């Protein structure tokens, strides 16, 4: 016992000393990055750390909503976050973001003008585009033999336990609204109620509600029909050639994920350095190749392999895009969305 006791004591001491030392280490610069799961080439972080001698704490979120709550509640002083369009609009409104100093982000010039000054951030004072994409249906041709061009197929009894839905309130409610022929930005409580009803009706058919795992499920053939973001579709198709992605005829959502600096950041200069690094053509190209989403970075597109550059999934036709809506911040109506989503999830 005494020997064991001493051993434990020594181990504790080592750990405490170690802790104090790492405590000292903290003087070196640290950046807290808050990104979507599986949304960056991990080697890019390593390169950034080596190049600028800055330690990166990288953590991930699953949806815009949980990222927002985390930032709003002050549970974490993040330096760079990656919210989507409607969430950026909300965060600007609530004064949660720093204005960017564009002199510190020279690589902004690589970004295609199409993606600058969009409605959620009219003068691009707060955000820098990272990726964009669409929402659509990914299906396995071997199992789903009919033509897929409508959201209706997600309500087809035939595909019970084959369907995967996104566990994200705006996306799933948006799909239901589109199926019903309404706008994805509906502010009409009756339309929302109808959307809720059909989503509840759909529940018995759904295999599971997920976010990042959808790729694995579809690749492995565990589920064969799912709502996905376009980049996940690209990544999945790369692994399983039987998969195909469509943007349904009723229209869908086009989204933009931008980099922002939340007010919780204590290191704005370094955060801008990171954003600039992400806009560097070689880095942006590596990320695009890794995650499969569509890059707004013109220089990066040049560096991509042919098959990605010409991919219809990542860079769809103009007419497909015209059917797509951008999410808007529902502002005070957001609580209605929250409540409706909670009720959909709770009902069975």
């Amino acid at each position, binding site marked *: 016992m005494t020997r064991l006791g001493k051993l434990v004591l020594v*181990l*504790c001491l080592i*750990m*405490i000393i170690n*802790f104090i030392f790492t405590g000292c280490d903290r003087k070196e610069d*640290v950046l*807290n990055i*808050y990104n979507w*799961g*599986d949304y960056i080439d991990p080697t890019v972080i390593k390169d950034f750390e080596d190049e600028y001698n800055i330690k990166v*704490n990288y*953590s*991930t979120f*699953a949806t815009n909503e949980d990222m927002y709550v985390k930032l709003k*509640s*002050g*549970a*974490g*002083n*993040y330096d760079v976050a990656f919210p989507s369009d409607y969430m950026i609009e909300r965060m600007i409104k609530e004064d949660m973001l720093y204005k960017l100093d564009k002199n510190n982000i020279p690589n902004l010039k690589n970004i295609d003008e199409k993606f600058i000054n969009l409605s959620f951030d009219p003068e691009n004072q707060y955000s820098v585009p990272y990726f964009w994409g669409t929402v659509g249906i990914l299906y396995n041709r071997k199992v789903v033999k009919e033509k897929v061009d409508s959201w209706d197929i997600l309500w087809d009894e035939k595909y019970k336990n084959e369907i995967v839905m996104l566990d994200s309130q705006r996306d799933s409610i948006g799909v239901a609204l589109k199926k019903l022929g309404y706008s994805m930005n509906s502010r009409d409580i009756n339309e929302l109620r109808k959307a809720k009803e059909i989503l509840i009706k759909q529940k018995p058919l759904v295999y599971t509600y*997920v*976010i*990042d*795992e959808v790729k*694995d499920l579809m*690749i*492995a053939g565990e589920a064969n029909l799912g709502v996905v973001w376009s980049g996940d579709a690209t990544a999945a198709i790369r692994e399983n050639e039987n998969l195909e992605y469509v943007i349904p005829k009723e229209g869908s959502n086009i989204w933009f994920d931008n980099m922002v600096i939340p007010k919780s950041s204590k290191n704005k200069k370094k955060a801008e350095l990171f954003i600039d690094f992400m806009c560097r053509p070689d880095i942006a190209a590596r990320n695009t190749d890794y995650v499969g989403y569509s890059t707004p970075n013109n220089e990066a597109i040049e560096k991509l392999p042919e098959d990605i550059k010409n991919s219809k999934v990542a860079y769809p036709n103009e007419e497909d895009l015209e059917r797509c809506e951008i999410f808007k911040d529902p502002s005070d109506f957001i609580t209605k969305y929250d409540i409706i989503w909670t009720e959909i999830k709770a009902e069975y």
Partner: protein
Amino acid sequence: MVNKQLKRLYTFLIFLFLYAPIIILMIFSFNSSKSRGVWTGFTFKWYIELFKNEEVLTALYYTLLVAVLASIISTIIGTFAAIGIHNMTSFKKKVVLNLNYLPVLNPDIVTAVSLMILFRFANIDFGFLTMLLAHITFNIPYVILSILPKLKQLNKHLAEAAMDLGATPFYALRKVIIPEIMPGIVTGALIAFTLSIDDFVISFFTTGPQVTNLSITIYSMARRGINPVINALSTLMFLSVLILLIIINKRTSKDVKHRGDII
């Protein structure tokens, strides 16, 4: 005879149920494919990668650090608290004991969100400190609960006798009381350590971006597919605990013969 076979079979089935996922985990730590469920060949590469994977190693480091610090601090506070509570008048004792039961009885998630609200109100940055404070908080009650029975068994007059013979209260505490309740203290510390190392819910709600423990890492990995490196790490941890237990068991088996059961 049939009866005996039946018992054997039953025991086997129950243990199969308990160990099936663990065996699967261990087997898949040698699987060369990254995805679960598909066996593509035998490899050691996850064990090599484990020692290069910073995310997992940092999480392991924080898990152990928090567990060690939290169990030491909560054992110290808890031991003194138990002695104090034991010497309280019955009414006060009842009140304190009932309050002490609260974190034990309360669902983890309630304790977790209540602490989250507290830290938010106090405006403390979420991170290592908040997680450590939370762990100490849920550990102390268990330490107290494992020491109190030992105090009850303690002869009341022992400490009094020591003091009559000229010992200061502190000296009596150190030389008489503490050694007598040592088994309770050790049990309490072990329970605290175990709870702390396995905790997910409370850590999940009280930590910040810089600090994650193994449970949180695994939970966030579950969303994007578990890295087999985690399987390798768990296999190693599991085997080391098993070996440690076997050694302790061997060394104390003579003891056990005299004393009987381990719990």
